[in-house]
């Protein structure tokens, strides 16, 4: 398999556009996923019966094949970026919801008791004690959701979106391997870079975990 380097040189603008579009779809989905899963996770954590229902529901959504989700959304949002983002968001919810609930569960009871006994009200305890302490587990979920979304964006090629995924169909239809290889490499680089940034972000956000005795 030979790589046609001149093709890459001729298409740098297109590749940049596709990469940015790819990244935008994935990150928007993760961001929406975090915004939706956070309140749901808090509810699931506080209200036991709701927990089984929400986690079960998100599992069911996860079993729907990704192409099917996009097809099912077509009557609602058509061949648009919106469809791509909604589809991806649904998938991030499974990971994010589960990890956020687990993160909140992992906060030591003693510490929550202490916060209450000092006279901290529930909302403030959630924001200043529970969420910070749950952060490492939540961030683990965000990392998985991000990498997963970056890889899934390509599937949206079938509805005319798909960022770097367009390179796969292009290369496949023309029996021309270069775009396919370039697409794979760029997707991988995006995933690795995004993950590294998230690790760095977590390091900055959790100073108490740096010098473990």
């Amino acid at each position, binding site marked *: 398999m030979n790589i046609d380097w001149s093709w890459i040189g001729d298409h740098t603008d297109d590749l940049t556009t596709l990469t940015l579009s790819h990244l935008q779809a994935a990150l928007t989905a993760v961001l929406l996923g975090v915004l939706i899963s956070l309140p749901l996770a808090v509810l699931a954590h506080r209200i036991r019966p709701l927990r089984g229902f929400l986690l079960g529901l998100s599992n069911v959504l996860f079993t729907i094949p990704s192409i099917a989700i996009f097809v099912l959304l077509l009557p609602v949002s058509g061949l648009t970026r919106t469809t791509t983002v909604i589809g991806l968001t649904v998938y991030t919810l499974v990971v994010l919801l589960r990890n956020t609930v687990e993160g909140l569960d992992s906060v030591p009871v*003693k510490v929550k008791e*202490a916060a209450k*006994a*000092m*006279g901290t*009200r529930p909302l403030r305890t959630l924001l200043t004690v529970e969420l910070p302490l749950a952060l490492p587990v939540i961030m683990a979920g965000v990392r998985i959701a991000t990498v997963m979304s970056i890889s899934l964006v390509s599937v949206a090629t079938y509805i005319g979106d798909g960022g770097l995924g367009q390179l796969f169909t292009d290369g496949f239809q023309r029996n021309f391997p270069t775009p396919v290889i370039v697409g794979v490499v760029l997707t991988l680089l995006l995933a690795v870079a995004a993950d590294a940034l998230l690790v760095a972000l977590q390091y900055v956000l959790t100073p108490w975990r740096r010098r473990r005795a």
Partner: protein
Amino acid sequence: MIQFDAVHKRFANGTTAVHDLSLRVPEGGVTVLVGSSGCGKTTTLRMINRMVEPTSGTIRVGGKDVTEQDAAELRRSIGYVIQQAGLFPHRTVLDNVATVPLLLGWSRRRARSRAAELLETVGLAPDAARRYPHQLSGGQQQRVGVARALAADPPVLLMDEPFGAVDPVVRTQLQDELLRLQKELSKTIVFVTHDVDEAVRLGDQIAIFRTGGHLVQCAPPAELLARPADDFVAGFLGAERGLKLLSLRTLADVPQAPAPQGGTWTLVLDEAGRPLHWATRDTEVPLRPLRDGDSLLAALDESVASPTGLTARVDADGVLTGVTSRDDILRHAGRAHTEARVSA
């Protein structure tokens, strides 16, 4: 002052944790709640700051019914020290201590300077301020817990087995520190422990609980040791309760005489006049010189160990002031018991 009136607590699972409790916790004193696990002592403590709500009866702090106050505000006005400190792992030591002042709306700068002041009060080095709790030893964490409870200068302090998780040496240090602080601050302290010696050491009054949440006896330690209300209390205080009573009395008013000269045993002093050991021509026996503030129990222990039956007494600088005989110590021990029984 904290007042319990006919307080009852039954949990949802049907167990009675506290049974018809009426108890008065005097202002500015240490009241220790003791009893084996499951006797309701911790539940009693936690009802004061509404971490647990009573099923019936009333609890008043400073004359005000606790259930009629906003729970969060009530808790901010009551210091709480938890077993194993319960510090916030994600906050620096300084910010842990500043917790309640910040909740009360103090500026960050004022809260932190107050916190720094308190770290010094509880005997922590200033460089501990910027560390995280997991970087401290158990004893240091416990000190931070005490500093955090004191931060907003609450009149009432609740302490739930605060020194339960540290080794005996550190525990004694922390107890000494608490007694020293209490002399300065005169807080109304409610202290929960299952350790009788700790209760006797710290308490101005001791409340003994029996399984099922019954308060059996509440009295000052000397009275409790001299006149336990029933076999349960006597058994709980242990077979050596007579000796424990001696730990409450000091050596101050026990007479002393000049050290004897020319016997078989000589009391050997260093150049400054500090006693070193007892000696004959060919043996040496170590000794423990005692100060006026030491307990009768320590004196009895030393007089039993001393080859002459004499206990060396020293001043604050460790210089010999005289010796006290075993007989004098025993006589005062007997008198301590008689007085405790009569005053009871």
